[in-house]
């Protein structure tokens, strides 16, 4: 499964990912139209800051998803790619998923009375947040590939120490 990997030291807090997330989920995928939507699209990831660290906080599509466990309508489900998706028409706006998500990344769209969360941009190969990050703080990676990279990094550090 592919993961969105966040390198917090690269995040400048520019919120480009948030904006592009909204645009991707707008009726017309266009910023100028999106801001004029009667019910503007909601973002599904959130730039947060603690001390000097800025980072996008986004859905992990947890294996043991608390949001899915809390959903009382069957609106939340896991698709064939392992992504926790929603069926809008089933959502009653009880916000149980918001209450359940320990990352705080399910949002309430009060205008249309449904919960919104990351859907990994089904219309795109690379999610809008990843594609838009100007500093590449967000990356779409294969879990195994990422582990390999980390191992390589450690080897590299070891070899530079040895030198």
């Amino acid at each position: 499964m592919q993961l969105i990997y966040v390198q917090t030291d690269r995040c400048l807090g520019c919120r480009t990912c948030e904006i592009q997330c909204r645009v991707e989920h707008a009726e017309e995928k266009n910023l100028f139209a999106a801001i004029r939507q009667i019910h503007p699209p909601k973002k599904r990831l959130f730039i947060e800051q603690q001390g000097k660290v800025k980072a996008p906080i986004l859905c992990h599509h947890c294996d043991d998803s608390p949001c899915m466990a809390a959903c009382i309508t069957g609106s939340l489900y896991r698709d064939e790619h392992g992504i926790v998706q929603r069926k809008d028409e089933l959502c009653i706006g009880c916000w149980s998923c918001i209450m359940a998500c320990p990352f705080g990344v399910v949002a309430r769209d009060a205008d249309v009375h449904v919960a919104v969360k990351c859907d990994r941009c089904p219309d795109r190969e690379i999610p809008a947040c990843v594609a838009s990050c100007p500093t590449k703080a967000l990356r779409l990676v294969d879990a195994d590939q990422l582990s390999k990279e980390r191992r390589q990094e450690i080897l590299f550090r070891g070899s530079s120490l040895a030198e």
Partner: protein
Amino acid sequence: MKCSIDPAVTEVLNNHKGGNKLKTAWDRYEAQQPQCGFGELGVCCRHCMQGPCRIDPFGEGPDRGICGATADTIVARGVARAVAGGTASHSGHALHIAHVLKKMLAGKTPDYAIKDEVKLKAVAGRCGIAIEGRSSKEIAQDLVEKALSEFGDKGEALTWAATTVTKARLETFSKLGIVPTSIDGTIAEVMHRTTYGVDADPVNILLGALKCAVADYTACHLATDLSDILFGTPQPVVSKANLGVLKEDAVNIALHGHNPLLSDIIAQVASEPEMIAEAQAAGAAGGLNVVGICCTGNEIMMRHGIPLATSSISQEVAIMTGAIDAMVVDYQCIMPAIATAAECFHTKVITTMPIAKMPGAEHIAFSDENAVECARAILRQGIERFKSRNPDKVCIPQKSSTAIAGFSAEAIVAALAKVNADDPLKPLIDNIVAGNIRGICLFAGCNTVKVPQDHNYIEMVKKLLAENVLILATGCASSAYARHGFMTSEATIRYAGKGLAAVLTVIGEAAGLGGPLPPVLHMGSCVDNPRAVDVAVAIANKLGVDVSQLPVVASAPEAVTEKAVAIGTWAVAGGLPTHLGVVPPVLGSKLVTEVLTSTVKDLLGGYFIVEPDPAKAAVALLTVIDERRAGLGL
């Protein structure tokens, strides 16, 4: 995405020999995607060090900056500063010419002279300077003092603004408090009022921007007038445009930038037999081939018939032909990327102005006191570089179009005078009234990476010409139409509606062109936009109406620069409905958007029409033209 609809540019982009690592503006545009949404909407502010602040355009996050500024205030301040930036450019351009004129009169710049006494007297007369019985030098001395006084604190309405618009327009400006009394003072005023904690009223800020735009108009008009006096008022001239004008067997020198102070001298020197001989001695059988790029290209094309290579957005592409030996630049619209592109070839980039240097280029300070020698030295650099040209890397597309350029207001009136010597404007007005000319549209501005180069220009002009709209063009708009063959008699036959074609044929034949006037009239560089205003004002005065009532519109369908923002804003102030084909960074404020596209219409008659789709934009402009015709009872 398609980069350009210009076949020559496309050919070079596809076939150049600069290697894969050579990147162009289009590549860099792609690398910038997606661009910052806050910036696109104009809702970020960096005017103080408590910031940067941003307003959430979706209404969930902050609705105010730290100081309390709303999106309306921030967007309005951004617009005003863009206008000030554009005005500063034109002020610098105009002031530079005025200084040289002053030094010339003092005998310090022997390579410059008063070339057009008729224009000198006309301008001086308009400015209230006594002419009778005085020498050109005396008149010019008064005129240059008057010109220089426009930049400082004049204490009264700027002369070049007050004497070149209709009386009614000046009254409208006065009522709104947007008559500037200083060009540079108004720029400073905008910077002051938009700095931390000064003007927070978005409407008041926009009025400040309008006032600054009027100062920009003043600077532009002054620059054009003084250029004509020093270098001659343009007259129709046949030349060629597009990259096919580069010659494989000649030393190709590209002049790029804006001010004729540099380029006009180089153009003169390049025809000296000694220089040509030096080029031939270096192995260039074809001698010296000077070509123009961007507005410098327009300046030397309309005054010397020197061919135009390409426009601003494709300046790198000119280097990518591998055939340019030196690219000589002054200021404005010079992309720092040309030095990087030049590294892949033998081309030498030569900067000439103390305020405009660039890493990777050679700087040869251009001295107006020793202009011809400087020009020769620069040309010799190009001749020297020719020896290192690698023929394997040359890719000159065999594509260029004939272009008739040089339609200054004076030239247009002169052509009309061939039809009616007593009342030259009458044929024009009669045909507007009769509907043979449905309206007039001024195309101005740049090329942008945001649409394929020239696409919007060409789509719109075809539609408007077919509907009998006469087209005036300046800046990179004129370059687009020159490169695409719209500045020929054949273009009139091919594209103009029946009524328009008939009128252009009558005038063209009367003027001795042996065919119709081109349907798109090349009025000069971007600083020359006031030439179009002069025509409109003359018509309005003749009819006893204001410009805001005429079926005259403007369009900058591929605008880029702050100068374009300033020009567009003064076009609106002048009463012209003005189309923008790229979305300016204002949509983050509903109020500012509303003011610029609607409210301002009630105050000034002009307003912005933002429409990225060229077909829809053409329809919108035709609708406005028809509204105005109806308003005049036509």
